[in-house]
């Protein structure tokens, strides 16, 4: 089998490589070739996953879709890969779908795993799992997040080949200013995660939750309804429509557990739930349940830590 991975520029390389490797691992066999395509990237001095057999990069250059898709076409004509796997960042999703459309390859987006020749993704706000039998060649993009960091690293040097992109005239964007730089998504790779849900009832309780997080060294995430209420940034939404996480320990306060949210913590090793509603679906998806008022528990935990732990 021939693999081609594509990582868009300006994403964080470690989670991207870890994600791509975890999806590939179950189907990768000895003797497979794996090309890492890095349009828009300069030569990075990074330990790559052991499976990577060569790297194609373009050198630092703005990597607009207009340039990248023809570049990819060029590489595919030479490499003839069976699976094109795009890292599912904003650009990665776009390139996957548009490249597949131009090449008339079947395309599966937001794939979370490959199993026995099938692509697995979630749908219906994650109530359901979608399985498609793959036909080759095919284009896949990965789900974002929900993967553990790290991968088996290669020991030998992998050849890096520079293949520049052709310059393509595009005057669609006339002027551009950056308002905010991309910040590392703290939810990705968080080992200890606390999530605020709308069951917290009010903004002030979220303040307590953040205080708790600081004292107990948790990264803070929010359910989509809580963030929509303005209790936290939309970038910190945990779930299908936000970030999929894979922490060692996850504790939720006032999260009822809509399927779309559960998808975001499915990979957590241990889940503790604090909620007042015993019928909340989240109790069926956790390891330890605490039927209690979230605010009261937060208050008690905060004062206990202040008293004992510091």
């Amino acid at each position, binding site marked *: 089998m021939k693999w081609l991975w594509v990582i868009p520029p300006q994403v964080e390389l470690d989670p991207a490589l870890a994600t791509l490797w975890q999806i590939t691992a179950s189907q990768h066999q000895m003797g497979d070739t794996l090309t890492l395509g890095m349009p828009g990237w300069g030569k990075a001095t990074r330990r790559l996953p052991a499976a990577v057999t060569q790297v194609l990069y373009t050198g630092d250059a703005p990597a607009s879709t207009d340039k990248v898709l023809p570049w990819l076409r060029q590489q595919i004509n030479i490499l003839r890969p069976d699976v094109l796997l795009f890292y599912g960042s904003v650009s990665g999703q776009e390139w996957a779908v548009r490249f597949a459309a131009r090449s008339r390859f079947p395309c599966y987006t937001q794939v979370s795993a490959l199993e026995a020749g099938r692509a697995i993704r979630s749908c219906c706000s994650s109530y359901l799992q979608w399985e498609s039998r793959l036909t080759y060649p095919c284009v896949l993009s990965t789900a974002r997040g929900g993967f553990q960091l790290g991968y088996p690293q290669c020991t030998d040097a992998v050849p890096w080949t520079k293949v520049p992109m052709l310059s393509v005239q595009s005057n669609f964007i006339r002027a551009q200013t950056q308002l905010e730089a991309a910040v590392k998504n703290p939810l990705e790779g968080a080992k200890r995660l606390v999530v605020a849900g*709308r069951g917290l*009832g*009010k903004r002030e309780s979220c303040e307590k939750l953040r205080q708790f997080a600081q004292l107990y060294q948790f990264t803070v995430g929010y359910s989509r*309804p809580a963030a929509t209420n303005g209790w936290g940034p939309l970038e910190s939404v945990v779930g299908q429509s936000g970030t999929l996480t894979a922490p060692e320990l996850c504790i939720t306060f006032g999260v*009822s557990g809509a399927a779309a949210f559960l998808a975001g913590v499915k990979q957590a090793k241990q889940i503790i739930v604090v909620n007042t*509603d*015993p019928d909340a679906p989240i109790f069926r998806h956790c390891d330890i349940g605490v039927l209690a008022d979230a605010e009261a528990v937060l208050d008690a935990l905060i004062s206990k830590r202040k008293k004992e732990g510091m």
Partner: protein
Amino acid sequence: MEKSQLIQNLEQLVGAAHVLSDEETILESSKDYIGFRRYERDKGKFFVNQAACVVKPQNTQQVSEVLAFLNKNRIQTTPRTGGSSVTMSIEPEPDGVILDGSDMNEVLEINETDMMVTARCGTPLEYLEEYLNKRGFTTGHFPQSLPMAHVGGLVATRSIGQLSTLYGGIEDLLVGLEAVLADGTVVRIKNNPRRSVGPDLRHLFLGSEGMLGFITEVTMKIFPYKPEDRWMHAYAIRGMQNGLDLIRSIIVQGYRPAVVRLHDEAEVESLFGGAYPEEHCLLLFLAEGPKLLTEATGKAVEEIVANSGYEIIDLGQKPVESWLQTRNDECAHMDEPVYSKYGAVADTCEISAPWSEIGNIYAAVKERVPEEVKYMVSLGGHSSHSYINGTNIYFTFGFLASMKPVEEARPKYMQVISIILEETLKRGGSIAHHHGSGKYRTKWMPQEHGTSYPLLYKLKEALDPNGILNKGVLLVENEE
């Protein structure tokens, strides 16, 4: 009395830990969920009077001592427990005291022989219901405020539940109670199936909204809990009046499904997103209780529907199941900017009337409101509690407020309410089916009660002569 002195005195009675005077607690305890208050809060405004403190007594003795003290010093007192009010009924007086019974939360006794349960006033209904379910019983009382309400408040507001057509309102479920009068006198009304010993004194407190006494303990009926034997069915019917006639027919023939709901076309759009046939009203039925009775009720409803002569679309049981699954979700989101993000104020207003007039009231409101209130964006209604003599209509409405200063949400809100209540009174209906008077419906109370209204003042004079308890509910000030 100076605020500091007041607090000090109260602390001596209940302990310093149970007198709270920080601003956050006071504001939180003064929260009401009437539509315009939710809107104002979302816009960062809090127009409610500031109380001096919140007192949380731990037992009846303390309630008695606190009230005796407050009465002696003529300090305005606002009683509360769960705080799910939507009528401004628990908004305090300036520098008054909020008497919060929510710490008195304990199930005292469950009597399986006599089929009743006794709990202190601050016991959350949701907790009580689960406590009973585990033992094979139910309260049969499921107001939409279930996740917030406490038993004391339920009795004080004459609450009703979604399954009331079978189980009745709280007045049918209440067996006995304990209450404390304004002067600190503790009164108990004993638990009996029925008595013929003069006027039923429970009714002094049922629906008194805290103005005649503070309820400290409640004994309620319990019923066997058998959700597995439920029968459910949904239908679509054209025309609200046809739907009302059909419900009447079921009730009058003697059948008592626990849930009998009729949502109008507008609500099929606004509450269900148009999931059901267009230009139709939605009927939801659920029967529960003993298996044989449930089956018979279900069969009878199906027959009555089939022979009604109306064109009715059978929607099966799933719409009822889905409604059951999400019916109280609203409660968890009470303080969220759900409506205000559209720049709208939304709320409900529930009235009741005999069968002969209820449809006319509905029609008159539907006609007048859009004509008179320029910025209305939605107006619907449903009947959800039926009796042999009539039923209720629960109006649901929304209007745009975003183009005006926040303060103007309230007068506009009251304009909608006025039309609903006027049309109701004109036709002999009652202006409050189950939310109570609170402080926003008070001015219509003289018309509501007519010649019997002075009796309420006489009761007030007898039970709270200094007028310290929940000023503003039910009684128009300076009426005499």
